[in-house]
């Protein structure tokens, strides 16, 4: 999916510990247009639960969340 999706904002969250990866995504979600996508790259495994939980509770959408090597990569779509 990442090959096909237009990325509106890249967020480097490497080195940040819980809850900062989720905080940075939240702070930046309004920096992309509605239907825009953030690609966030984190190193804290806690983000694998935190970012999808944040998206679900705020109504935004995680298009994908997965591990690439030592990195956790998220595509988050602003829905509103």
């Amino acid at each position, binding site marked *: 999916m990442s090959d096909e999706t237009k990325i509106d904002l890249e967020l480097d969250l490497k080195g940040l510990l819980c*809850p*900062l990866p989720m905080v940075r995504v939240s702070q930046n979600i309004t920096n992309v247009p509605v239907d825009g996508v953030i690609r966030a790259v984190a190193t804290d*495994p806690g983000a*694998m639960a935190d970012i999808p939980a944040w998206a679900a509770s705020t109504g935004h959408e995680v298009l994908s969340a997965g591990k690439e090597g030592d990195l956790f990569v998220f595509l988050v779509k602003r829905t509103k």
Partner: protein
Amino acid sequence: METVEMQTLAGVIDKKMNRQLKQYIDICARCAICKDACHQYVGTGDFKYLPARRAELIRQVYKKYFDKTGRFVPALYEARDPDDNLLDELYDSTYACTGCRRCMYYCPFSIDTAWILSVAKAVLIAAGRGNEMLGQLADAAIFKGDNVAMFEGVITSGFEEIAEEVRAITGNPDHGVPVNKQGADVLYVALAGAHSIRPAAVIFEEAGESWTISMFEAANYGYFYGDPEKARLITKRYIDEAVRLGVKEIVVPECGHAYRVAEFFYEAWSKEPMPFKVSHILEKVDDYIKTGRIKVDKGLIEGTVTYHDPCQLGRNGGKFEQPRDIVKAVTSNFVDLTPNRAEQWCCGGGGGIVAMEEFKDVRLKSGSKKVEQLKASGANILACPCENCRLQIEELNEIHELGMEIWQVIDLVVASMPLPGNKKSAGA
């Protein structure tokens, strides 16, 4: 703002005001001793961060609605409505407060400004002005707790990776990270990151502890947000899990507010006694060292080590000596900060402020006393058992080029343990 809405907000204050809080707002003599105690006021010089001023906003509304003097002659008694202007002021002074309670320590009447500000947060939430980020973090935690099956796979997979790392460090193929182990003595309620679990697992396994971990974490942004119900729900997840697993003790990690919530607040929120003991991880580690259950070597850490008392663990939790005893056990070169223990300066990073971007400027300025203390110590390693404190001090370390290493205490302990796979070394 409509009159009826302001009456509703005043009603929130009335509902929260018990005799102790009424005494606090009556008794404040505005002596302003608290101004020299507050790291935010000292760091910024901004009147709105003066502790007596923060509490004064609640007092003004209380006077206007519930005190004869303020009701009939409001101008004379500085009584005010909770209008938009007051709420703007209240938001800044309340959510910026780190809840360190250093002002209370120095106040001649021991006025607990942080407690008064819990009333302020209730007012702000009722007015729809609760901090959005803290609210989102709390809601996300509640969502995770409600939908644990959705996250179980990724969390368990993370535990398995950590177990591999633990075995690599200890060199013992039998070591690991027990998950949901029925009948374990100890439930370790970690933070979400691996950094909170890995060193604790090494220590528990080396100590031969009967322990387990579960799907639920200790951080509680419902508490920072100021909503006791959200805070209770977040805590209830691991309390229920501890009951289900039949443990004798829950151990909370190096996270100041998590300790205070579990040890001091949850029973009051839930109105139910907990059928097990609550301990801080450093109480356990101190015991393991003193009883010889884990071996530490003072020669493995190079440099001079100092220790920061997180406000929620130290001044507000009473845990001053065990962490120091641990640090003294792993190094011959310990120097304390001045002042320390109950008089320790807040680093400026507590209360959830590290997650609130709008307070970044005041947060960094309010770290000025901590920077002075760290420079004066001459230490090159700081042991600090609180996640929020470490986030703040790491930023101060970089901005002020202090050249320090900031360590969790349990990481420092693991670095001092003569283990075959111990590659992490402090001060080297």
